[in-house]
């Protein structure tokens, strides 16, 4: 059996590293290491030793230049001390090896602004979509229903019937791209999760079901391989029934939260051999 080693990068304003690591562990990962980026840049830890890279939620550099912009700039330019290597080369190698990367919230913003998503033509270095300020002009913490596209190549949402219910917590979550990019995303079924009504029937454009005004109600997208995936809602924040906002009302709510399904799909996929 293939080992599943997950890494969660932290530092400079990443906030959700602990719960993401906990979700990976609950999903069956053999290891889930929280690694400060300083460890990677010092060359003491290498991405090559992992199969599942998690870019967690937070406010990289305070989102000061726009969400995750400065963070994307760092990952593109930061060098590994004492070597000729840049961190981005390790990321390229990671992708080329068919390994999995999931970005949540700020991690999704980071992937999009680095160009890792949607990476339509396989170019992982050019930004082609963005996430910007919510239409309501405010940070929003609220739960959202996400309809899953069963035809999506996304590894993480395979087998999920209907959809998932997860919290969003962001000020810059509105997915924006030009018409052609949106068409290609649509054609490739890359928008694995869309904001929807509570029965997961139809995508919703209007607030509050769509909390940010995202185009085509897009909450998350994968690349054409389905291995790189990012989404604004937080799957790591619903792995146990007590995290559900109405757990005291529903005695039949399962013990396990829906967000865990995404992590389990990732772990199982790696376990089967990449």
């Amino acid at each position, binding site marked *: 059996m293939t080992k599943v080693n997950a890494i969660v990068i932290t530092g400079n304003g990443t906030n*959700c590293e602990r719960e993401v690591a906990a979700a990976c562990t609950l999903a069956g990962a053999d290891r889930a290491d929280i690694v400060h980026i300083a460890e990677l840049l010092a060359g003491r830890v290498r991405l090559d030793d992992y199969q599942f890279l998690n870019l967690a939620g937070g406010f990289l550099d305070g989102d000061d230049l726009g969400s995750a912009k400065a963070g994307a700039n760092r990952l593109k*330019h930061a060098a590994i001390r004492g070597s000729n290597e840049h961190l981005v080369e390790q990321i390229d190698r990671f992708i080329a090896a068919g390994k999995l990367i999931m970005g949540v919230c700020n991690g999704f913003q980071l992937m999009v602004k680095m160009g890792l998503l949607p990476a339509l033509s396989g170019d992982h270095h050019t*930004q082609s979509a963005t996430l910007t300020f919510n239409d309501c002009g*405010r940070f929003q913490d609220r739960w959202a229903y996400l309809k899953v596209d069963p035809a999506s190549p996304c590894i993480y949402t395979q087998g999920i019937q209907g959809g998932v219910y997860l919290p969003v917590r962001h000020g810059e979550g509105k997915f924006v791209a030009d018409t052609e990019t949106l068409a290609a995303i649509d054609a490739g079924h890359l928008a694995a999760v869309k904001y929807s009504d509570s029965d997961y029937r139809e995508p919703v454009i209007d607030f509050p079901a769509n909390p940010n005004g995202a185009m085509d109600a897009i909450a998350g997208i994968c690349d054409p391989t389905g291995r790189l995936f990012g989404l604004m809602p937080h799957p790591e924040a619903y792995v146990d029934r007590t995290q559900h906002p109405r757990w005291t009302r529903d005695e039949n709510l399962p013990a396990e939260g829906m967000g865990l399904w995404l992590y389990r799909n990732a772990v199982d996929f790696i376990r089967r051999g990449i």
Partner: protein
Amino acid sequence: MPWRIEVALKQGVRDARAARVQRELREHLGIDLTAVRTLDVYTIDADLTPEEIAAAAHGPFCDPVIQEVAIDAPLAGEFDILIEVGYRPGVTDNVGRTAKEAIQYQIGRPFAAGEGVYTSVQYLLSGPVDVALAEKIAAGFLANGLIQRWTIVSSDRFDRIKGLPATVPKVQVTAASEVHEVNLDVSDAELLALSKAGMLALNLDEMRTIQAYIRDPQVLAARAAVGLGALLTDCEIEALAQTWSEHCKHKIFAARIDYLDTTTGKREEINSLFKSYIVRATKDIRAAQGKDDICLSVFKDNAGVIRFTDDWSLVFKVETHNSPSALDPYGGALTGIVGVNRDAFATGMGARLLFNTDVFCFASPFYDQPLPPRLLPPRRIFEGVVEGVEHGGNKSGIPTVNGSLVFDDRFVGKPLVYCGTGSIMPATLHGKPCHEKAARVGDRIVMVGGRIGKDGIHGATFSSEELHEGSPVTAVQIGDPITQRRMLDFLIIARDRGLYSSITDNGAGGLSSSIGEMGQDTGGFELHLDRAPLKYPGLQPWEILISEAQERMTVAVPPEKLEAFLTLSREMDVESTDLGQFTASGYYHCLYEGKTVTWLSMEFLHDGVPQMVIPAVWTPPNLSEPQLPADFNVQTALLNLLGSLNICSKESVVRRYDHEVQAGTIVKPLTGVVNDGPSDAAVVRPLADSYVGTVVAHGICPRYSDIDTYPMMANAIDEGLRNYVAVGGKIDHVAGLDNFCWCDPIKSDKTPDGEYKAAQLVRANQALYDYCVAFGVPLISGKDSMKNDYQIGETKISIPPTVLFSVIGKIDDVRLATTMDAKRAGDLVYLLGVTANELGASELYAQLGELGAHVPQVDATTALARYRSLNAAQTAGLIASCHDLSDGGLAVALAETAFSGGLGMRIDLSKVETRGELSAAQILFSESASRLLVTVHPENQGRFTSLFARQSCSLLGEVTTTAQLQVVDANNCSLIAASLDEMKAAWQAPLREM
């Protein structure tokens, strides 16, 4: 030449920032613009090539999907008026700092000293606006003149080729660093003038004590030995002023109070309120609890520490940041939250931050009276404070789990901004209790985090005075959550590697206070001020000593671990600097460029402040109960109350705060069938491998102070505990924190009613002791803010005496927590507790413009038994919902329980157990203490009632499927028949759009 990069949204992209500005200008200033656009501007003052500038402009500064960028050329399109807002020199510019770092990553080399990036925002206004109106918009809405500057250009004067010139708001200080001496051998009048002119906030008695110190021949001899003369240096007088400030020394709580109660004629002398009531309460409770004592560290550290599990301890601290928030609501509140984060972190050897709490007291945001000079409109304070705490909390990754908004128009003079933080530490670290620490002789003094600037100079002394004409603008600071986050990420690793022996934060009083306090462990220190890293050159030694520049900690590092500490710090992009060492000299010793600039006895500094004597006379106000109007209608009154500012939904604010990050918020601030009901308290699960939880709640009821502060305090304590048990907090494992916010209680020309205000303070403290002991709730930490007055000219506005009583405790299993929303039709509705004619200072009377006299009284003995029984029922899983009764009484609690659950209720008011004969209105709106509304599944009725066998437990009715709250009297006549929709709409209306 500096470069100027402008970034604009592409045509057709929604400009959310501009839309908000346009909407708010229309709603609040009545200015109806046809269009608003905004631009981001980066001014780069650095030696870079045109290629490097272009790479930055098209790289990190611009989002190619939605933005366009121009270098040294304008992007402004059509407009009538352009307003560009940037920071004043020296004000923290977080975006500028990040922009600079981004360029450094690109070019692979650091900026030279003095080089930097400065940001500003350009607002392009179209419509009926001229330069004069633009000035008003800039000064009154877009910018805060204390920290920002602006340029206004009309369309016809705008250079469309070159745009605005690049201006660099760099701090230009040419003054040489000097140490001045201060002659205290002067008259009393001159002593006072010195104190006032120097923002020292020392009274005559204190100035004389310092005068006597410097006249002491032994002191003079000791000074001569280190090369100091017979005059105090400016560094020394500033160190004394900071250490002796009301803010740091709590002189009013330490004063001797001569208290006369005119109702009994009894006179008593109270030697320190703090020792007599607060410390003594905790001491007595701990003694009584014996082996069940939960306290680990009380009063002595930055925060209090209690036991949580065998392996973990909980830390909690609540602070206020009122004065800075009055001047700059955003910066003041942001600094408040990141400041209390540092307190909760730097307790013991360090603790991981777990949650935030916020309580704000404001004047109505719809306040429409003319404002006296220097006061900001309440709506602006509301917006700024809410946004400051939003940025501070959200960016730091700490969930805001509990809070309140309290409204009273007397808070127009000073808003109260309470910020609390809980954290968690291992019970033991490297074999020693983690909540203990001590610097050792020879340990290096290491300053970690941000650099020192002129920001925050005199913050401690400024907040020890009322807001006046000369209140200094340098007292305002802007927090930087990311620099702090990096520092805390680093320090928690350094803690776990055992790289330091003590830590404390740099808050009020800066290095002077932090090192002065740590130096008490060893009995002295030697601090080299010239080694401290500065934001810009030109600071005087005394400014370095007392600057309150943010995001800094002081750490005691054993010499043999210094190298490892500094290496780790460098790797993690955190600046750490060795500034000297802790000694046993007995002296507060600072040097500048090798020359001694302070040589103060530690003993004098810490224990030399003379005790104040404050007269206090209690004469109760002459009050009576009002008659309700003849046409009083209870249903109308209920709907009005639901729509009152103190009771209405705060959802628009709650949703702006991330209350779920860290994934442990089990009872969230909003609950119910559509996630919008008002929770009583928060339950947080801090450990992923255990279901044990911590519960946090609070009580606050400043209105009751208008009748008597004794029941005000009693009710605040009871409300905090009532909220705590409502969600399942264990009443036998809970601690309290008191945060007093008072108006000046010292009788003087400015405060002729000082004796009454001082008596109010005494009475609140008496209740604090009495009820904490009666409930068995030890106090572990607290704070007081004693000068919440506004005085300019003839206008004086004092806040109502306000105490926030916060509680923290435990629930053994979060899966047993209960929420406030009705769960199921057919459930039985019970009221726990007796209702009396206690509407004095109630929300209902406030609505009617009355005060009344019968303020609620608290019976701790019966309340404690009730809370214990409730805990037993929760543990047995017998409670379907539980909601506390507070503002608006039973009627409001019924309405909230019903509409939050999306279920109706049928209630027979005659079943309510009352003390004496009460009218329907009195039963519905009385605010009698210690009452809870509970719903119970019918199958649990027997077990439930047996737990409350000898207590007040009234079955009022049941939960129904009809979407209506129906309340009937003994004759089955309808008193209330209100639909859930109309009640909820009334409750959600007032602040929905904020």
